[in-house]
């Protein structure tokens, strides 16, 4: 086997692996859309973050970019462990209903999700025609994850699931970032920290809503603002 063949073979393997990991992240997003129980939602999110860490680590190995290991570590520690732990603690502490009320039925949500994935593939593949195949697939998957996160935010009534949707959206951003060559570490760190800050803010916010309305259903918030009677 010549060295050129090796590179080609490695290219195939690295491409397949990255594709597989990205697809798993996307499947997790669909799982988040599908799941009705709050603890399961948080667990799924935790899995998604861990797979994201795996994706970052794989990219670090393939691209030979050591700083991506740091990204992977951040994703694992913050998103895979710290954030789900905090969310679980909040759910326990606030005694929230363990079922999730959806604004849109599960079936239509899944169909909309499939449509969004199709849209991002249709959109991304022609735009990035000149880029490497790996980057293109990665971008399409990342964009699907972002759109599914947004979809989750608007189809759920409960504040905790909205936060999880936001975090999952952010996972999509990180996925896109690690796939693209030359993304500086500093950007990822700052994103990670901003997510952490957002998490802290959301936590405080939950406590305040809860104190005021005895629920985390944001419908109460709307009543309070005088938009619904």
């Amino acid at each position: 086997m010549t060295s050129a063949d090796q590179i080609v073979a490695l290219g195939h393997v690295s491409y397949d692996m990255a594709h597989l990991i990205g697809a798993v992240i996307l499947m997790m997003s669909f799982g988040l859309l599908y799941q009705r129980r709050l603890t399961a939602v948080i667990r799924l999110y935790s899995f998604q973050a861990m797979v994201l860490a795996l994706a970052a680590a794989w990219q670090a190995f393939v691209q030979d970019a050591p700083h991506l290991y740091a990204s992977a570590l951040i994703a694992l520690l913050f998103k895979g462990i710290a954030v789900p732990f905090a969310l679980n603690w909040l759910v326990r502490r606030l005694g929230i209903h363990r079922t999730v009320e959806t604004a849109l039925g599960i079936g239509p949500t899944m169909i909309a999700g499939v449509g969004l994935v199709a849209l991002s593939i249709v959109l991304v593949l022609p735009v990035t025609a000149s880029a490497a195949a790996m980057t293109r697939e990665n971008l399409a998957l990342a964009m699907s994850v972002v759109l599914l996160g947004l979809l989750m935010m608007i189809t759920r009534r409960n504040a905790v699931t909205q936060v999880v949707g936001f975090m999952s959206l952010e996972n999509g951003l990180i996925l896109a970032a690690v796939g693209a060559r030359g993304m500086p570490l500093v950007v990822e760190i700052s994103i990670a920290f901003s997510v952490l800050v957002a998490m802290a803010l959301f936590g405080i916010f939950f406590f305040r809503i809860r104190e005021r309305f005895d629920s985390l259903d944001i419908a109460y918030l709307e009543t309070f603002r005088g938009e619904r009677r």
Partner: protein
Amino acid sequence: MIIGTVLGGFLCLGVLGLLGSSLAATHRLIYAGCLVLAATATGDGLFHMIRYGQEAVPAVVLPFGLPWLKAHFRLDSLSAFFLVAVNFPAALASLFGIAYGSHVPEPRRVTPLFPLFLFAMNGVLVADDAFVFLVSWEAMSLSSWLLVLSNHTDAAARRAGLVYLVMAVFGTFCLLSAFGLLAGPTGAFDFAAMRVAKLSPLATSLVVLLAILGTGSKAGLVPLHAWLPLAHPAAPSHVSALMSGVMTKVAIYGLIRLLYDLRGAVGWEWGFLMMVLGAAAAALGVLYALMQRDLKTLLAYSTVENVGIIFIALGLAIAFRDHGEVALSALSMVAALYHVVNHALFKSLLFLGSGAVMMATGERDLDRLGGLLNRMPVTGVCFLVGACAISALPPLNGFVSEWLVFQSLFKGPTVAHWAMRFGVPVVGVAMALAAAFAATCFVRAFGVAFLGRPRSDAARAAREVPWPMLAAMAVPAVFCLCLGVFPVMVTTGIATVVEPLVHVVLPAAVLGWPWLSPVSLTAGSYSATMVLLSGAGLMITTLLLVRHLGTRAIRRAPVWDCGHQEDIANAQYSADSFSQPLRRVFGQVVFRAREEVEMPPPGSTAPARFTLFITDPLWTGLYLGLQRVIDAIADRVNHLQFQTVRRYLLMMFLTLVLLLLVVAVRQQ
């Protein structure tokens, strides 16, 4: 060079006015300074027109303004011509201001802004890039806006200021977009680059439309005139003279610069549009003027009429040029520019006259004036000359320019298109109607204000105004006569200005002295000198005949007093009663004029009341309609401010998906 010094001088005077406005002498000093500077600029413009002809003084680039653009200035024959047309009335207004400036209600709010206003107008004229042009244009709008608001304790002045500001912003926005289109994606904002820029047909149409809207809103073209009769009368009279007589001319300069210089080829349809808009402005403006009781509002509406006449001539010039009739195009341009000068002269004169009347009586309501000719003979005679000139009576200047416009209008059907063939007679009728109404309007204005008996104590106690004001009115009156009596000199001068714009010289034979025969020697010719000589001859003959043949005996008898023993001033024709026939014929259709007479019951000692209701169809229809539409949209959009969190997210999400879909579809 000289004009640069003048511009700097205006700025210095403005600063001086800000610093030293507490001293009465400062005001006089500033107006005197403005007089000197404006006279210098007039001389410079004249010198430039004579010395250089069509050659432009090379552009001057000064290192301020936008860092990548610098500031370009240039003086060509068109600029020089407008320098004269702007600065000569400005000098007169300054002279008037020496005596009048301390008489306005709040002189400290007026004096510092006066030189700045002149500075801005001159800046527009010498600008050679869009940035300097627009900044000067905006400075002109803002300084005149502040001058309108100088009397801001009056609610009417505040309203006028608001409407003016909105319209000025609209106009500048249009011009900004027009220059943006001309500059193109490379951002070549200097005029030299714009002249050679290639534009798509759509972009050219947009530029022309925006130019007409932008400059038309400043010049007072119907239907963008709404601010003009509010704002012009609200300012002090010498400023009104500048706004009405001069600032509208700066707007017309902008239009000529954009459509004739920067954009050489403009379709005849646009000329047709300008012609029709101009005809509407001429007819409607003077109809409005005829209904007004306020002397200054009347003059402001008359400005709308005259701007309409100028637009008719400018539109004709475009239509002729697009059809290759360059000689006729040059003739129309000459007519337009002639009317620019004339209107600048007599409108300034009339506004200064109204200022003199206000100073002497404190009144501008026609129904509280009367009999002023005996008390203010010089003002009265000057006002009469201005009124005759604006009514286009020979041998004064207004006749020559309107006659030239008519001459070129009659040649309109040479443009072989049915719209022009049918449009030109209609426009001609509208303009003839406007000319007749203008005469009626000024018979009414002069007759009610200066003839008859005083209708108020203030009018009875009127005294003649000081000599600087009289001089400021007498000089334009003399010039109205000169420009009317020696028209060939003026047309020859203007022909050199027009030449670079239309690339043709008006044939000298057509302009032979003393006969002005613009089209051909047989089609129509006019000699003001002959008219004047024969008129004077006839008058002298009649005088001599009456003297020699008539009796010398003097018979004194009581004046017939229409059966009234006592002296009741109210029994005279009032402003409203004079215009009643025309109001009943035209006003009921156009203005929905309604008269109500309220008679007291028998035995009651209450007075009978006559009330007149006039609605402005353009204001209620167009402006208030637009306001209703904007209010309705705002109401709808306001709901977006009060959505639920999830609804906001949904809107963002749907917008994102929609935009992505657009991108996806466009890629296929």
